[in-house]
């Protein structure tokens, strides 16, 4: 490395890429929690951080944390975080000499890595070649086999016609996995149980792969059932040093997406750790890896492990490794990118305690995990001992539909696994996220599942049963609390009246179900009548976002947010969203949808567009009347058939004169 300071960019380009160049300012080419997390370490290391952002992210937290910001414009990823030219231009404009790509977006894009090099910018990550090799599952697998890294029996050949793939699958045996060679993130993957399903699975995976990754190359793998997903964190410097930072167990997955990650793996033995660590180091060496990376393995019940893929970037779940090793992986990335030696050797590393991470998403587990967008009304992270929260949000932040809906990662450390698990559940309860539906309740349930507690979670852990338990539905006490909340007024004489209390009725929508709650203010609080149950909630005190109440003699605090008729209530272990429909308008019976189309004005019929027997849709133009030099279109007020047309073109009509009669198709009123 020598002791020469950074030379001028032109001089560097002419030299061996990277040689002699040191970082002064880092552009973070990412968004959300990871941008915040990277900016943090960049600044802690003494560098200035530059953020780039889309229009949708203009007010995002990470933008505020950076020292300099550059707007990329646009909303979609393609217009912003995936636009290499814009990002390179931003780096040049800001004078950033290094780009940290975070994860996702351009982090595993070989072309981008090469483009950075070409422009004299340090790409904080491996070389384009390493990314390219590891990015292609079949190529990677071929290399791994030759480097004595155990691989799942499978096919990663160049012949990609369906006949070849089918015949290879039969050789491997069922069940088999069909995967996009360029894949990642769970897309382009099909699990095929029987030969009969194979061809259609290949077709589907091909289409999806082409769509998602621009390549329809597939690989086949023996499906390892009831396996665990265990990955090894590695770090390699430019000088050939490679270490591993132990494993992470990411078995708890939903549709191949990691939900809970922990380190170390509860399934690990010392021998297996050493074997897997060595294999991971070998894998990195095979591609002359530089930077931090992750080698993913499947481990079967007999503790046989198979290479799955290598992620040539910082992983989402890297904090669990940091918490058990006391290493800042981003800081290490910066050191490596600066051409320094690894600050640690393998022997320096020990495992300290246990860490578990959960990913908090704006999604609705009760509704097929549908991503949620909108305003996050309230965000209060847990401040408990041993808890780390990586996030990119704040109270009032907007969650846009353009990107991944992950809001935060919550990580808890404990001296042992059980302490970490306990702390994480408590941290989840303490972390308040309101206004948007999140998977918080679901995560608490997962962490409370017997199988997880015992450390026996495999990739099939999140079963339908678990999902059912995670969606227990609304309880009467929840409805009661929401109603108490509605009965709070800003006035200092809240709830006071000189008159005898009167029974009040509120209707609340939870999911698709409507509930009626009657309430009566009492001297101590409220009596709430729900179906046949009477619930008493007393000693109510309402603050800005907290409701203190006593139920069955126990005093608790619920956190809430309310925007007009939308109420979110966080009861710790459960979060509920209510829509108050008490004052929602009643659908008119006679007015709209009567099928009787009357003239809206006196005027001249200039056109009649239908004749008896015609089938019309809601909103179709039937008759046009001209009055005061303006055309008035008379539209169908529902779907149906024209039964009579009472006017002709050229006819003068009076206001409210019946023009057309429709026999409307009965539409099922879903609100009923």
């Amino acid at each position, binding site marked *: 490395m020598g002791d020469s300071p950074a030379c001028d960019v032109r001089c560097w380009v002419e030299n061996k890429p990277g040689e002699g160049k040191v970082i002064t300012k880092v552009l973070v080419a990412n968004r959300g929690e990871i941008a915040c997390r990277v900016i943090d370490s960049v600044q802690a290391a003494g560098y200035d951080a530059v953020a780039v952002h889309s229009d949708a992210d203009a007010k995002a937290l990470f933008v505020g944390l950076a020292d300099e910001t550059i707007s990329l414009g646009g909303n979609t990823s393609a217009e912003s975080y995936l636009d290499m030219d814009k990002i390179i231009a931003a780096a040049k404009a800001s004078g950033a000499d290094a780009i940290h790509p975070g994860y996702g977006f351009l982090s595993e894009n070989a072309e981008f890595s090469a483009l950075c090099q070409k422009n004299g910018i340090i790409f904080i990550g491996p070389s384009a070649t390493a990314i390219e090799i590891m990015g292609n599952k079949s190529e990677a697998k071929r290399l791994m086999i030759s480097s004595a890294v155990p691989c799942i029996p499978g096919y990663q050949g160049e012949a990609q016609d369906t006949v070849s793939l089918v015949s290879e699958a039969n050789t491997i045996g069922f069940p088999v996995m069909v995967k996009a060679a360029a894949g990642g993130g769970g897309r382009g993957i099909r699990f095929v149980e029987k030969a009969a399903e194979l061809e259609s699975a290949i077709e589907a995976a091909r289409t999806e792969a082409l769509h998602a990754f621009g390549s329809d190359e597939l690989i086949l793998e023996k499906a390892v059932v009831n396996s665990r997903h265990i990955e090894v964190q590695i770090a390699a410097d430019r000088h050939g040093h490679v270490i591993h930072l132990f494993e992470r167990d990411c078995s708890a997955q939903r549709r191949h997406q990691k939900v809970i990650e922990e380190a170390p793996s509860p399934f690990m033995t010392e021998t297996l750790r050493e074997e897997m660590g060595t294999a991971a180091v070998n894998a990195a060496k095979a591609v002359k890896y530089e930077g931090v990376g992750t080698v993913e393995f499947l481990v079967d019940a007999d503790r046989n492990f198979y290479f799955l893929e290598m992620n040539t970037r910082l992983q989402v779940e890297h904090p669990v490794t940091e918490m058990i090793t006391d290493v800042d992986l981003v800081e290490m990335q910066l050191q490596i990118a600066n051409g320094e030696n690894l600050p640690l050797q393998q022997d320096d590393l020990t495992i300290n305690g246990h860490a578990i991470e959960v990913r908090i998403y704006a999604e609705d587990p009760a509704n097929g995990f549908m991503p949620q967008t909108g305003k996050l009304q309230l965000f209060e992270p847990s401040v408990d001992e041993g808890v780390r929260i990586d996030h990119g949000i704040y109270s009032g932040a907007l969650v846009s539909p353009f990107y991944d809906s992950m809001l935060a990662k919550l990580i808890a450390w404990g001296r042992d696994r059980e302490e970490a698990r306990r702390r994480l559940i408590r941290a989840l309860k303490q972390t308040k996220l309101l206004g948007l539906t999140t998977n918080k309740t679901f995560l608490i349930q997962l962490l409370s599942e017997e199988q997880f507690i015992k450390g026996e979670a495999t990739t099939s852990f999140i079963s339908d049963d678990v999902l059912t338990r995670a969606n227990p539905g609304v309880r009467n006490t929840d409805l009661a609390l929401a109603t108490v909340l*509605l*009965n*709070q*007024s*800003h*006035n*200092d*004489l*809240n*709830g*006071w*009246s*000189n*008159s*005898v209390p*009167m*029974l*009040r*009725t*509120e209707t609340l929508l939870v999911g698709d179900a409507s509930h009626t709650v009657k*309430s009566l203010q009492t001297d101590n609080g409220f009596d709430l009548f729900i179906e046949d149950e009477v619930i008493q909630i007393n000693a109510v005190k309402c603050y800005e976002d907290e409701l203190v109440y006593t139920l069955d003699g126990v005093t608790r605090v619920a956190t809430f947010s309310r925007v007009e008729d939308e109420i979110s209530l966080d009861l710790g272990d459960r979060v509920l969203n209510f829509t108050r429909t*008490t*004052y*929602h*308008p*009643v*659908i*008119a*019976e*006679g*007015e709209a949808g009567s099928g009787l189309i009357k003239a809206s004005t006196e005027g001249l019929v200039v056109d009649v567009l239908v004749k008896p027997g015609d089938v019309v849709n809601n909103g179709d133009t039937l008759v046009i009347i001209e009055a005061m030099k303006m055309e008035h279109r008379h539209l169908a007020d529902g779907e149906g058939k024209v039964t009579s047309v009472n006017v002709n073109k050229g006819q003068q009509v009076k206001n*409210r004169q019946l023009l057309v009669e429709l026999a409307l198709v009965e539409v099922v009123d879903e609100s009923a």
Partner: protein
Amino acid sequence: MSQLETKLDTESDDFNANVAFMKAYMERIRTIEGNGRKTEEKYRERATKKGKLLPRERLVHLLDPGAPFLELSTLAGHTINGDKEGETAGGNIIVGIGFVNGRRVLVMVWNYAIKGGTINSATTKKNLRLQEIAFATKLPIVSLSESGGGNLAGGGEPDPWSAYGFIDGGRVYAQQAELSAAGIPQVTVSHGNATAGGAYQVALSDYVILVRNQTHLFLAGPPLLKAATGEEADHETLGGAEMHATISQTGEYLAESDADGIRVARNIVAQLPPPAERYLTRDSEIEAPLYPAHELRGIVAEDKRVPYDMREVIARIADGSRFFEFEPVMDQHTVCGHVMIGGWRAGIITNNGPITPEGAKKASQFLQLCDQSNTPMIFLHNTTGFLVGVEAEQGGQVKHGSKMIQAVVNFRPPKISIIVGNSYGAGNYAMCSLSLKPAFVFSWPTARQAVMGGAQAAGVLRIVTEDRAKATGRVISDEERDTMAKTGEMVEAGLEQLSESVYCSSRLMDDGIIDPADTREVIIFTLETCKETEHRGTKPNTFGVQRF
């Protein structure tokens, strides 16, 4: 400000007897109110069948949940118009001040479940009082209307068909027009029957919401029409919601049900200027009194001759029980001073006995000081009247008493009266009873309003008779003396009954009887209502809003 130290012994027999009496009296009032509610309940089945809400259900649906609500004159019409023990009391309208979409409003719900919401003398009086409050406070009026118009049966009044009631009732419509011109919006949902007088109440409103298949608004319904002209027509054609929404345009909004109509009314209120309380800043932080409110029930005795110190009342309503007394060493019968209540500055004038010339002077001066500093005044009545006697007369009782009345009437900041106990004679005026137009006046169960006490009146009558006999030299026989004694007893007992709080409140000589424990809240609520007035944000015009 010094903190008041209580001398009240809450363990004493007297205290407990007072509490027992007060509680029993409040229970009696709740029973009278409850009897009216029982009458309403009888209508439930019919209402449910028609898909209608009961009047009180409409009221609750209109009001913001959790927001305070002050109901007014619940006893109106009790024991008159054929009422016995409250079965038909309330004047067939439920009136109060509450919050709709954050805005303080006057609400009037026509109680169609009692006598079809028809209009009798109590209805008119209560309605006129509501309008008077509206003029004074600029509160918008939301009316949930359903009334059969004037009560043709008369309800036991001696002359139901007299023009008196008719002309008196006309004041309501006149004032509706004046309210519109005064920039006080009137929002009315026509929930059902709106015949004749009921129709004008609706149509004279600034905003009218019609309810499909329920509103029947016309000058004459089908029976009267047939009788008058022979024309036959059904309700919907004559005055249905759809007809009025599309043809006559007597209403602006067409709703689908009771609840839907109330929703529209709430939306209309939401379009009015923002909540006036937004523009108010408290004078200080709210502080609770040192002594609990329920102790207010134990201060006044059933026997009106038993004296008590009104400072005990002040100690239980003022912030931190603090009272900054004005001229504390002058005249012990009239007590004046400053307090904070609910974080608001206020003056208090109260009595520990009759109003003397000195007391009247003190009160008048205090009124002028509070007027100058724009400090609202709270009157806590406990006086047997102006002091009589040579010393008092020579001390200028009439002069000082008159000038006190003048000071009270012309006092410009808000005035709120609480009749705690005795309120007799000119003392009743000087302490700002309803006749002197306070913003609000409420009575404790122990309140008594009359020209004088029953015993005094009987005594006056006896002395006048004796004097006349003496002047003419006639000797009063024993028989005559017996008759006089009996008459005296009757006058005494009668006057006692006629001065009682329930009697007075039933005849709208106040805005209602309150539980003493609610006094502080009532004062804060009404004080805030008054203080908001200048910030309501609506504007007067010349002719009121016309409907074309």
